């Protein structure tokens, strides 16, 4: 029982960052119809920005996090402006290839700049974990959960409570009619890609200190993000949030009760199961929703 409770706690903590990854990816797909193959690279970049901000810039840990998120936002805005805007109206395959290329460039860029040796990010949290009855959790992981949960709530509020969110949802449902309402659709696209990118960077900046930072870290993160989005239903934000926690639970239980070698396989098992039994995902209706 104790072991199970510990797994549930770990699920909660891992799930928060997975949800961030999935929401970023599903937002970009849902609104822009772009399959974002730079998502994993942006996750890596977020982790390296966090590393740079803490070590080279000497910002405190808590100031470094928003810096890394902002960096992801700006990089996303540039990627959209330079690569995606000229391709608007091009078919999906073209955009996909360009994004794969951009992902390779970003990943190789981090390898070139930082080398292949893994870096660790120092944190201000005490080493001793917090004991909660029979289970324990490190302070760092607790902070990661809190930060991820806040970002999820913030994103949800942005989409459902603000003027930009209204424009994003309108563009998602019908971009021509949104334009007729006076929505600046090009700006909505850039904002969407920047926000999605900043969420990927946030996930990297949060998990970077938990694990280590290395140039290929984004590859597995990207696959997991795709698993989450397929599970939750393409374009469904709520689906991505819940999908993140389901994947984390599957990984925890797979690693805990089958073999720790199965942890990263769970994502693929989920993709296969969803595609076989429920191809639209768990939470998407026939018509996709915001």
């Amino acid at each position: 029982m104790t072991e199970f409770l510990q797994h549930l706690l770990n699920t909660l903590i891992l799930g928060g960052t997975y949800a961030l990854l999935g929401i970023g990816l599903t937002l970009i797909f849902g609104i822009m119809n772009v399959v974002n193959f730079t998502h994993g690279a942006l996750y890596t970049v977020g982790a390296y920005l966090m590393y740079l901000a803490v070590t080279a810039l000497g910002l405190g840990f808590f100031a470094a996090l928003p810096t890394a998120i902002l960096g992801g936002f700006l990089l996303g805005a540039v990627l959209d402006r330079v690569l995606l805007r000229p391709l608007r109206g091009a078919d999906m395959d073209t955009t996909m290839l360009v994004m794969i290329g951009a992902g390779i460039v970003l990943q190789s860029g981090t390898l070139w700049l930082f080398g292949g040796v893994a870096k660790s990010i120092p944190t201000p949290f005490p080493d001793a974990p917090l004991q909660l009855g029979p289970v324990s959790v490190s302070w760092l992981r607790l902070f990661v959960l809190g930060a991820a949960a806040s970002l999820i709530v913030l994103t949800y509020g942005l989409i459902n409570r603000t003027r930009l969110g209204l424009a994003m949802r309108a563009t998602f449902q019908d971009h021509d009619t949104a334009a007729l309402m006076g929505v600046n659709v090009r700006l909505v696209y850039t904002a969407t890609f920047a926000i999605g990118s900043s969420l990927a960077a946030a996930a990297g900046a949060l998990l970077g200190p938990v694990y280590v930072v290395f140039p290929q870290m984004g590859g597995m993160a990207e696959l997991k993000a795709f698993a989450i989005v397929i599970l939750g239903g393409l374009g469904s934000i709520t689906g991505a949030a819940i999908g993140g926690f389901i994947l984390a639970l599957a990984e925890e239980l797979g690693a805990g009760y089958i073999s720790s070698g199965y942890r990263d396989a769970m994502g693929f098992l989920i993709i296969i199961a969803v595609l076989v039994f429920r191809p639209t995902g768990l939470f998407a209706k026939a018509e996709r929703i915001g």
Partner: protein
Amino acid sequence: MLEIRDLVCGYGTVTALKGLSLTVAEGQLVALVGANGAGKSTTLRAISGLVPARAGSIRFAGRDITGADPRTVLGHGIAHCPEGRRVFPQMSVAENLALGAYLRRDPAGVAADLARVYGEFPRLAERRRQMAGTLSGGEQQMLAIGRALMARPKLVLFDEPSLGLAPNIVERMFAVIRAICDAGTTVLLVEQNAFAALELCDDAYLLETGRIVLSGPGATLIADPHVRQAYLGG
């Protein structure tokens, strides 16, 4: 108020408008009638900037708006109520109406217009929290009209407001559109239902395969032998 000269538009290799000219005077209800595929919707989409003009010019209230984007056109005071209603299905009635006023920066005026729209269409007020996709066709058309009015436009473009609606609802829609014009908003109405549109309008244009072939007061067009034979069933 609106003046289109020799407008040429198309999609890919297809030319939908082959030099169309028409004028809408302020305060008038002008109908653009014609068969399916004649280019009626394309005309409205070109005015709104959804379809680029290949040649010709569009002027509105003394300004050249040829090639302007939809946001700019709306900013000048032209609202577009698109074909097939095109309400945002996964948004509430209230959010759809809020999007109609998206560019406006006068909250008091927006609130007043919202009250007016709800007054005109009590069904929308009853269902303000309901998702627009769950409304009936007639209610969706009311919502689309209300949404266009929320921009407080000088000119409204209506694209086939009668499409797919029951006859008694169609009658109601046309009465509403006439009332909008009588209240001082200029209207350009595109309709396949030629007889109803010609009865309703002040002036009318008949469009055939991308060209205006006939124009004049609605009553004159109704009496025209060609119109009677081709569009009014003899």
